C-alpha cells in the first residue's frame, strides 16, 4: 500500500486515533492517571480495566512502531478498530461520569474531598496534573504564559521532542501530542478548576467561549469541506461544554447553565419551526417537482393556481360564514314559506338526479341560491341582519378581490422594477441561465436550446444596437402580424355579433321551428373560434420572431381579446333572458294582485270566515330571475370544469397512452413523429383559470355557492393537473424563465375583474329585485337595504350626518379631491421614476470611473511588485521576509473584504485552534496554500495578494 492511501485512511478516522502515534512513556503515564481516577470512582471495575489498558498500551506501542517503520496496513487497521471500540466505551463512561459531576455541586465537593485524600498518597503525579491544568486553558487561548509551571511543562515537552526527533514525522507528532495533552487534561481538570482560576482568567475564558460559540454559529456559512467543518465543530463544542460551566460560581453557575440549555433548546426549536414552515406551504413540493422537470414557466401556472386558490378560500369563508351558515342555522326552515318550498308542479321530479345535476329541484330551493333567502330583517336569537349581510358580503367580495389583485400587482411591479438593471446582461446569461433544478434529459435538451437561442438573441440585439439596418424588416413583420391578428379578431367579433343577433331573432320566432344547427349556432361558433383562432395566432406569432416569453404574453393578450367576445355573448344572452323573466314576472304579479283582490273581495263579504291558508308549495310565484342567473353561472362553471377535465384525460392521458403503446406496432415513430406527446399549454390553462374566476366574480352575488364550487374545482385541478403534467406531458420546446409574466397574468385578471363586476353592479343597481324571492324582495332597489339599516338601526344623528354627507354638494368636492390626490401621486411617482433612472445613470458613470481608477491602482501595484521582485532577485536572502509581507497584505485585504461584505471576521481563537488541527487532516492532501483546490499547481506570488481565500476564516 502506498503512503497516500495510508494517510487518507488515517485522516478518515476519528481524532481519537491520534493517540496511537504517541510514545509509550506518555501513554503509560496518562493511563496511570486515568487508573487512579477510576479507582476513585468505581472500584469494582478496576481489575478488568487494568487488563484492558495494559493490553492497549502495549499493542498501541507496537502499533505506532509498525506504522512508522513497516507501514503494514492490514494489521494496524484491525488493531485500530479494536482500540477504537474499547476507547469509545471508556470515553463514554468517563464523559458520563464527568457530566454527572458537573450536574450536581455536592457530588463535586465529595469528589474534591476525595482528591484531597488521594493527594497525600500520590502527591507527585497530582502536582503534575495541576501544572498541566494551569497550562491547558492558556494553550487554547494561545496567550503568553509566564508562570513557572508552564515553563517546566514546556521543558518537559522539549525533552520529549528530543526523544521523538528520531521519527520522520516530527511536526505531526508534536501537534498531536499537544492536542492530546490538552484533551486529556481538559477532562481531568473539572475537579480542581474552581480553585485554580483567577478572575482575569475567567474573563479570558468567557471571551474564548463566546468566540467559540460564534464560530459554531457561523460554521454553516463557511465554504469549508464537510470534514473540516465537523472537526472544528467538534473541537469548539467540546471547548464550550467544558468551560462554560466554569463561568460563575454557585448560583450563578446554575443560572448560566440553565440559560445555555434554554438558548440551545430555543435555537433547535427555531430551526424546527423553520422547517415546519416550509412544509406548511401548500403544494410547495409538488410545484418544486414540476419546476424541476418542466422549468419555471409551467411552474408559474401552478403558482398562479395556488394564489387563486388562496383568494377563493377567503371568498368562500366570507360567503359561507356570513351568508350560507347563518341562513341555514337561524333562518326559517325549508317548507315554511313559498320561496323555500319546491312548487307543486316540480315536486315529482325534484329529487331526480338529472334535475339536481342541473341545479333544479331541491338544489334550486336551498341556501345555494339567491331565491331561498328571506327578506326578514333580523333572524335568530343573534338578531343577525341577513339582507344587510348578504349585500355587504357581495360588495366585500368584489372589494377584497380588487384590493388583493392590485396589491399583488404593485408588489410584483416593485420586484421587477429592481431587476430592471441590465448592466450585467451577458454575465448573468452566462452564469445564471442554467437551471440547476433540471434533472430530466428532455428538459435539459430544451434548456440547452433555449440558452443558445437566448444567447443568439442577445448577440443579435447587441449587433442591432450597433447597426440597425435589419430592424425595419422585423418592425414591418411585427406590424404585419398585428394587423393580421386585428383582422382576425375583428372578423371573429363580427361573426359573433352576427350569430348572436340571428339567434335572438330565432328565439323570438320560437326555437322549435329551426334546425339543430340554427339552435346551437352560437355555441358552435364560439367553440370553433376558440379552437382555431389560437392556432392561427400561433402561426402568425412566428412571423414576429419575439422572445418566447414576450410571444407568450402576446399570445395571451390576443386569445384574451378573442375570449372577450365569448364573455360578451354570454352577457348579452343573460340580459335577454333577464328581460324575458321580468316580463313574465310582471304578468305573474298582475295576476296575483288581481287574484288577491278578488279573494279579498270575497272574504270581505263574509268577514267571519278565517282566511284560507294555502300550502306554501301551492302559492303562485314569480320566476325569480336572480336565481335563474345564479343557476346559469353554476351550470356554466360545472360544464367548463367537466370539459377541462375531459380534455385533460383524452387529449393528454389517452394520447400519451396511445403513443406509448401503439408505438411498437406502427408504421412510423409515434413518439418522435406526428402525434408525439402533448406539451403543457400554459397560455390556454392560464386563460381558462382567469375566465373561470371572472365567472365566479360575476355570479357570486346570485349564487353564494359559487366560491365553494370553485374551491373544489381548483383543488381537484391542482392534483389532476400536477399528475397529468408529470405523467403524460413533455416539456415545452423552448423552456424559458417566467419572471415578469406573473404580473401579466395579474393584469389580465384585473381586466377580467373589472369586466365581470360591471354587469353585476349594473344588475344590482338598475334592475329592481324580484317581488317574492331573495333577501331584498319588496324593496325598490337592492341597495335600499343600506338606507333601511341606517334609518332603523343607527341613532338619528348618524343618519342625519350620513344624509348630509351624501348630498352632492359634499360628494362632488370629495371626488374632486380624490382625483387631485391621484393626479398628485401619479406625478410624484413619475418624478421618482425619473430620479431613479438618473441615479442609475450616475451609478453607471461611477462604476466606469471606478473601473478606470482600479485599473490605475492595479497597474501601480503591478509596477511595485515588479520592483520588489527585482530587488528580491538581487538579494536572495531577503526573499522570506518579502514573502511574509505579501502574506500580510493578503490578510489585510481579506479583512477589508469581509468588513465590506458585512460579515464578521472569524474569531481569532477558533481560527488558531482550527489551523492547529487542520494541518493534521489536510497536510497530505492539500500541499498548496489554503483556499486552493488540493492537488493543483501552486499559486504564483504576484496573484496571491489578490485572492481572498475563504478557507482561512
Amino acid at each position, binding site marked *: 500500500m502506498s503512503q497516500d492511501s495510508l494517510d487518507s485512511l488515517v485522516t478518515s478516522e476519528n481524532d481519537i486515533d491520534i493517540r496511537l502515534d504517541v510514545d509509550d512513556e506518555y501513554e503509560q503515564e496518562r493511563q496511570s492517571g486515568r487508573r487512579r481516577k477510576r479507582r476513585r470512582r468505581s472500584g469494582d471495575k478496576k481489575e478488568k480495566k487494568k487488563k484492558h489498558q495494559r493490553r492497549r498500551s502495549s499493542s498501541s506501542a507496537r502499533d505506532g512502531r509498525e506504522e512508522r517503520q513497516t507501514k503494514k496496513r492490514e494489521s494496524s487497521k484491525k488493531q485500530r478498530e479494536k482500540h477504537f471500540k474499547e476507547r469509545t466505551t471508556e470515553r463514554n463512561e468517563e464523559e458520563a461520569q464527568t457530566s454527572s459531576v458537573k450536574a450536581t455541586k455536592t457530588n463535586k465537593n465529595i469528589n474534591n474531598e476525595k482528591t484531597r485524600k488521594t493527594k497525600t498518597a500520590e502527591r507527585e503525579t497530582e502536582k503534575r496534573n495541576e501544572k498541566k491544568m494551569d497550562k491547558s486553558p492558556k494553550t487554547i487561548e494561545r496567550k503568553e504564559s509566564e508562570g513557572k509551571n508552564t515553563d517546566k511543562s514546556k521543558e518537559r515537552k522539549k525533552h520529549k521532542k528530543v526523544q521523538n526527533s528520531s521519527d520522520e514525522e516530527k511536526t505531526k507528532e508534536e501537534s498531536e501530542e499537544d492536542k492530546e495533552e490538552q484533551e486529556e487534561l481538559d477532562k481531568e481538570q473539572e475537579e480542581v478548576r474552581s480553585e485554580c482560576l483567577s478572575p482575569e482568567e475567567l474573563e479570558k475564558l468567557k471571551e474564548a467561549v463566546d468566540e467559540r460559540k460564534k464560530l459554531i454559529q457561523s460554521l454553516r456559512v463557511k465554504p469549508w469541506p464537510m470534514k473540516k467543518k465537523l472537526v472544528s465543530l467538534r473541537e469548539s463544542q467540546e471547548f464550550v461544554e467544558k468551560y462554560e460551566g466554569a463561568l460563575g460560581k454557585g448560583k450563578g453557575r446554575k443560572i448560566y447553565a440553565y440559560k445555555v440549555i434554554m438558548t440551545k433548546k430555543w435555537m433547535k426549536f427555531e430551526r424546527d419551526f423553520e422547517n415546519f414552515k416550509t412544509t406548511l406551504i401548500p403544494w410547495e413540493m409538488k410545484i418544486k417537482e414540476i419546476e424541476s422537470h418542466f422549468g419555471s414557466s409551467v411552474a408559474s401556472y401552478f403558482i398562479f393556481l395556488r394564489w387563486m386558490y388562496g383568494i377563493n378560500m377567503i371568498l368562500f369563508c366570507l360567503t359561507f360564514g356570513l351568508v350560507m351558515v347563518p341562513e341555514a342555522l337561524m333562518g326559517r326552515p325549508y317548507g315554511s314559506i313559498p320561496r323555500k318550498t319546491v312548487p307543486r308542479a316540480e315536486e315529482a321530479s325534484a329529487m331526480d338526479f338529472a334535475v339536481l345535476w342541473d341545479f333544479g329541484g331541491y338544489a334550486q330551493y336551498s341556501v345555494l341560491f339567491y331565491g331561498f333567502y328571506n327578506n326578514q330583517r333580523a333572524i335568530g336569537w343573534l338578531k343577525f341582519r341577513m339582507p344587510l349581510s348578504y349585500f355587504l358580503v357581495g360588495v366585500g367580495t368584489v372589494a377584497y378581490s380588487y384590493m388583493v389583485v392590485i396589491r399583488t400587482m404593485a408588489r410584483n411591479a416593485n420586484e421587477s422594477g429592481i431587476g430592471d438593471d441590465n448592466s450585467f446582461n451577458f454575465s448573468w446569461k452566462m452564469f445564471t441561465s*442554467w437551471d440547476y433544478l433540471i434533472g*430530466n434529459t428532455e428538459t435539459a435538451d430544451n434548456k440547452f436550446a433555449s440558452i443558445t437561442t437566448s444567447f*443568439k438573441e442577445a448577440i443579435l440585439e447587441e449587433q442591432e444596437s450597433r447597426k440597425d439596418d435589419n430592424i425595419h424588416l422585423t418592425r414591418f413583420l411585427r406590424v404585419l402580424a398585428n394587423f393580421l391578428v386585428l383582422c382576425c379578431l375583428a372578423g371573429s367579433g363580427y361573426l359573433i355579433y352576427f350569430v348572436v343577433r340571428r339567434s335572438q331573432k330565432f328565439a323570438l320566432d320560437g326555437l322549435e321551428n329551426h334546425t339543430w344547427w340554427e339552435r346551437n349556432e352560437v355555441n358552435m361558433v364560439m367553440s370553433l373560434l376558440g379552437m382555431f383562432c389560437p392556432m392561427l395566432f400561433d402561426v402568425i406569432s412566428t412571423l414576429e420572431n419575439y422572445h418566447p416569453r414576450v410571444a407568450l404574453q402576446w399570445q395571451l393578450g390576443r386569445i384574451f381579446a378573442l375570449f372577450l367576445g365569448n364573455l360578451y355573448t354570454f352577457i348579452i344572452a343573460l340580459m335577454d333572458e333577464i328581460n324575458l323573466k321580468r316580463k313574465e314576472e310582471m304578468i305573474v304579479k298582475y295576476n296575483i294582485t288581481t287574484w288577491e283582490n278578488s279573494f279579498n273581495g270575497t272574504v270581505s263579504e263574509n268577514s267571519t270566515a278565517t282566511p284560507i291558508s294555502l300550502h306554501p308549495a301551492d302559492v303562485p310565484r314569480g320566476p325569480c330571475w336572480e336565481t335563474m342567473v345564479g343557476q346559469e353561472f353554476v351550470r356554466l362553471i360545472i360544464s367548463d370544469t367537466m370539459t377541462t377535465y375531459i380534455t385533460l384525460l383524452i387529449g393528454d392521458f389517452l394520447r400519451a397512452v396511445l403513443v406509448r403503446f401503439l408505438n411498437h406496432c406502427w408504421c412510423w415513430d409515434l413518439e418522435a413523429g406526428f402525434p408525439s406527446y402533448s406539451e403543457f399549454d400554459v397560455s390556454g390553462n392560464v386563460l381558462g383559470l382567469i375566465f373561470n374566476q371572472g365567472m365566479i366574480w360575476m355570479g357570486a352575488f346570485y349564487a353564494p355557492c359559487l366560491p365553494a364550487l370553485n374551491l373544489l374545482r381548483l383543488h381537484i385541478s391542482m392534483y389532476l393537473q400536477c399528475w397529468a403534467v408529470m405523467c403524460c406531458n413533455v416539456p415545452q420546446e423552448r423552456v424559458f424563465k417566467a419572471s415578469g409574466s406573473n404580473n401579466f397574468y395579474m393584469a389580465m385578471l384585473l381586466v377580467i375583474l373589472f369586466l365581470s363586476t360591471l354587469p353585476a353592479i349594473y344588475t344590482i343597481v338598475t334592475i329592481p329585485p324580484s317581488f317574492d324571492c331573495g333577501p331584498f324582495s319588496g324593496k325598490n332597489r337592492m341597495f335600499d337595504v343600506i338606507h333601511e339599516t341606517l334609518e332603523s338601526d343607527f341613532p338619528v344623528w348618524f343618519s342625519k350626518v350620513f344624509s348630509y354627507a351624501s348630498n352632492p354638494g359634499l360628494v362632488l368636492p370629495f371626488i374632486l379631491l380624490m382625483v387631485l390626490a391621484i393626479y398628485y401621486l401619479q406625478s410624484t411617482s413619475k418624478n421618482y421614476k425619473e430620479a431613479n433612472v438618473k441615479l442609475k445613470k450616475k451609478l453607471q458613470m461611477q462604476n466606469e470611473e471606478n473601473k478606470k481608477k482600479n485599473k490605475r491602482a492595479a497597474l501601480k501595484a503591478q509596477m511595485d511588485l515588479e520592483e520588489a521582485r527585482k530587488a528580491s532577485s538581487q538579494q536572495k536572502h531577503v526573499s522570506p521576509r518579502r514573502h511574509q509581507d505579501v502574506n500580510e497584505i493578503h490578510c489585510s485585504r481579506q479583512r477589508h473584504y469581509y468588513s465590506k461584505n458585512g460579515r464578521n471576521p472569524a474569531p481569532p481563537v477558533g481560527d488558531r485552534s482550527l489551523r492547529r488541527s487542520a494541518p493534521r487532516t489536510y497536510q497530505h492532501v492539500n500541499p498548496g496554500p489554503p483556499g486552493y483546490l488540493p492537488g493543483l499547481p501552486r499559486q504564483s506570488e504576484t496573484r496571491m495578494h489578490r485572492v481572498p481565500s475563504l478557507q482561512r476564516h
Partner: protein
Amino acid sequence: MGNKQTIFTAEQLDAYQVGSLCFVINTSSLFILIQKLFYRYRDLAPQLVPLDYTNHPDVKLPYELIGSMPELKDNPFRQRIAEVFSEDGEGNMTLDDFLDMFSVLSEMAPRDLKAYYAFKIYDFNSDDFICKSDLEKTLNKLTRNELTDDEVRMVCEKVIDEADLDNDGRLSLEDFQHMIVRAPEFLSRRKPNNITYILIWF
C-alpha cells in the same frame, strides 16, 4: 436494513445537524434526512459502502457513479461540481464530501456560500480567476458548442467588459460576487433556482 444506531452514532448525527446539513432539511427530522442521503449515497454502489459508519470507514465513490445521479446527470457542469466538492479534486467523493455537496447545493444554503462555490465551479483551471478560456468552456458547455467561434468570442468579451471591475482581463472572486449578487435571481424574494441550486429528490 440498519437503523440509526448501526449507521451513525448519535454524536455524528448531532454534528451533521449543526455542521451544515440543516440547509437541506425539508422533512421534519434530521435522522430521516441523513438516512435518506446515506442510502442515496449507498445505492450508488452498495458493494462498496458499508452499512456501518460508526467507525468512519474510508470509502470513496468514483466520479462515474456520482455523475450518473439523476440530480447531476444532465448538468453540463457536473464534472466541475464533483471536482470542486471532492477532497481529492478529481470527483471521487467520500460520504462527507457528498453531504457537503448537497448541503451547499440545497435551497436553504446562504447565497454568499452559493456564490463562492459557483465561482469555483466556473473556474475551470482552478487558478482562482475566471479567465477567457474558462468563459469559453462555460459557454460551450451551456450551448453544447452551437455558437460559432465569433459569437463565443463576442460573448466572452462582453462578459469581461461588463463584470471586470479592475480591468485585468479576467474575473476575480470579488468581481464575480459583485456581479452575481446583482442578478435578478439574487434580488427577488423568490428563491434563486439558477445559481447552484439543486433540490434533492428523494
